[in-house]
């Protein structure tokens, strides 16, 4: 698929930190992941985004070593990772519900990774202090996990996972148990922390806003297949498939066809360099504007439509425009007050992005294998 190309800033992944090569995973008859290939660069923040059941957590667990791939390979540098047990892999995990050891104090939890490797006591003390400082939990070393709030437990889980200084940190929906405010705060702290320590994060989430806000690149998974992998800007402005366009942000899907360099969707038509044939276009609501004299240039499409609904949301408002022909479009325009009746709208042909129907990931089991 054309959109699955890696984005320019990570184009040279010859120095990939981790490489997943054609990995598939079956649970019994259910195919949870199929033929996944992707690379993670050193210091990169890569997000695995998808609905529940898309296989994102399974992919993370394969990399951590809690599951074995049915086929394919996982490499970290010159080391084949999928042949190693979890305790020999140089990656660490932040678990969804933190998985702090309830019988150990915060200090002992954080020190765990060093203890089991028989690190000298003096060194352990120093590094635990450092890790707790990094997550701003210095005062809690002697507390038991059960006495901490969700956000605090999250920080301890992070400190514990970072103590072994992994080059790649795996995070399994680490913020999903936090309330909205705390979640936003932890997002920015997480991003700042990742920049500061400069290690790669592989972050699993089902929240597209979170993925957009944090990631260098987003890998969108659907029914166990990779739908698209690109930077947030690219995946939003150049979605490869209809699914991507609808999953990330809102969009209008225009169905039509291209004939000799002219795209036709109902009564709308514009010139396009794309190849002839049936076509599907994604047009973001904010790409549609109220027509004014300024838009009277070439490369724009004009159309008239009746405003059926207007939803005000502060800085902007969402219009539902009925064009007739059973076609309605959504437009997001800057808030301008009440609008009624028939209006004229325009959009730039550049913003109508041709997308493929889907990547053929239909008919797969949607059973959720994410363990508790």
């Amino acid at each position, binding site marked *: 698929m054309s959109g699955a190309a890696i984005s320019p800033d990570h184009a040279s992944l010859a120095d990939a930190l981790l490489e997943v090569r054609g990995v598939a995973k079956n649970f019994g008859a259910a195919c949870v992941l199929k033929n996944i290939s992707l690379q993670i660069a050193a210091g990169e923040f890569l997000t695995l985004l998808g609905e529940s059941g898309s296989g994102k957590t399974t992919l993370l667990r394969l990399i951590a070593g809690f599951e074995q791939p049915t086929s394919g390979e996982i490499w970290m540098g010159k080391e084949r990772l999928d042949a190693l047990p979890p305790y020999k892999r140089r990656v660490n995990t932040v678990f969804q519900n933190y*998985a702090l050891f309830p019988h150990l104090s915060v200090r002992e939890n954080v020190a765990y990774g060093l203890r089991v490797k028989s690190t000298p006591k003096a060194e352990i003390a120093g590094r635990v202090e450092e890790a707790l400082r990094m997550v701003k939990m210095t005062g809690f070393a002697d507390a038991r996990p059960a006495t901490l709030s969700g956000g605090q437990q999250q920080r301890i889980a992070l400190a514990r996972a970072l103590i072994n200084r992994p080059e790649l940190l795996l995070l399994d929906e680490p913020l999903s148990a936090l309330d909205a405010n705390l979640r936003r705060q932890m997002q920015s702290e997480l991003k700042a922390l990742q920049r500061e320590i400069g290690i790669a994060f592989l972050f699993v989430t089902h929240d597209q806003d979170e993925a957009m806000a944090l990631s260098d690149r987003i890998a969108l998974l659907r029914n166990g297949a990779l739908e698209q992998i690109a930077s947030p800007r690219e995946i939003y402005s150049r979605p490869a498939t209809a699914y991507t366009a609808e999953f990330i942000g809102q969009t209008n899907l225009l169905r039509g066809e291209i004939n000799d360099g002219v795209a036709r969707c109902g009564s709308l038509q514009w010139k396009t360099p794309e190849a002839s044939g049936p076509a599907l276009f994604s047009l973001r609501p904010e790409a549609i504007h109220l027509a004014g004299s300024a838009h009277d240039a070439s490369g724009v499409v004009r159309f008239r439509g009746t405003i059926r609904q207007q939803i005000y949301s502060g800085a902007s408002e969402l219009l539902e425009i009925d064009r007739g022909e059973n076609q309605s479009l959504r437009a997001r325009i800057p808030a301008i007050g009440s609008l009624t009746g028939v209006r004229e709208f325009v959009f730039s042909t550049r913003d109508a992005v041709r997308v493929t129907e889907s990547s053929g990931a239909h008919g797969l089991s949607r059973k959720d294998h994410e363990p508790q």
Partner: protein
Amino acid sequence: MYSRAYKTVIAAPPLLWVCLFLLLPYALMLAHSFWIVRDGFLVHNWNLQNYRALFTNPLYFQVFLRTARIAGSVTLCSLLLGYPLAYYLSFHAGPRKELLYQLVIVPLWVSYLVRGYAWKTILGSDGVLNGLLQYLHITREPVSFFLYSPFAVVLMLTHIYTPFVFLPIYAALEHIPRPLVEASQDLGADRRATFLRIILPLSIPGLLAGATFAFVLSLGDFLAPLLVGGPSATMIANIVQSLFGAAYDWPLGAAISVCILLITISLLFLTERIEKRWSFR
């Protein structure tokens, strides 16, 4: 909210039951332990003679020591059998888990007496075990020390109490969130280290509960020594039984019972304290 009358009505039957069949008998037992038997008749004459006899006659102390030793061995053996079994079932049995669990539980449905007599047929001079040994030419003549020995009692009680030890340990292991095990491995601990640092500590409440079951139940057992123990394996409960029966010395029997009760209660108290210390939910 329930009315006071409703609560009283609900609570009355069990309370009555406990008073009639638990507290009252215990009170009677306690009273008896301070009375004596003179010329074949119970005399309600308050004194400490029975307790004095217990602490001065070395026989009682010896039997008590043997009882504790047997109960301790049973506890140890059931733990050594029950813990690995529970660990295997909880962590490694996979799809066989349900079946194996049922197999462990099934013996609990079989009468204690039946299992006792089964051991008698296995261990006896012309029993199954001796038959096998002679058939295999390992022994020439029947070996007599299998049956009627403390060994036989430990064997039979271990057989009977291993499921009791298994159950709480299994429950404790099942309650350990699996992500904790994964987190431990993720941080670099191999299976052994994960077991010693995470699984074992978190299963201590179950382990203690199981050990307490085995020890307390073995401590008060009198059927195993009767069936397979013989005179060399007489336990304290057999003494109590004979004092209340043929020997007709209820006061002395009651005094011994009071001692056993006190030991049991302090054991339960102690293990509960330790269990609390090791529970985190």
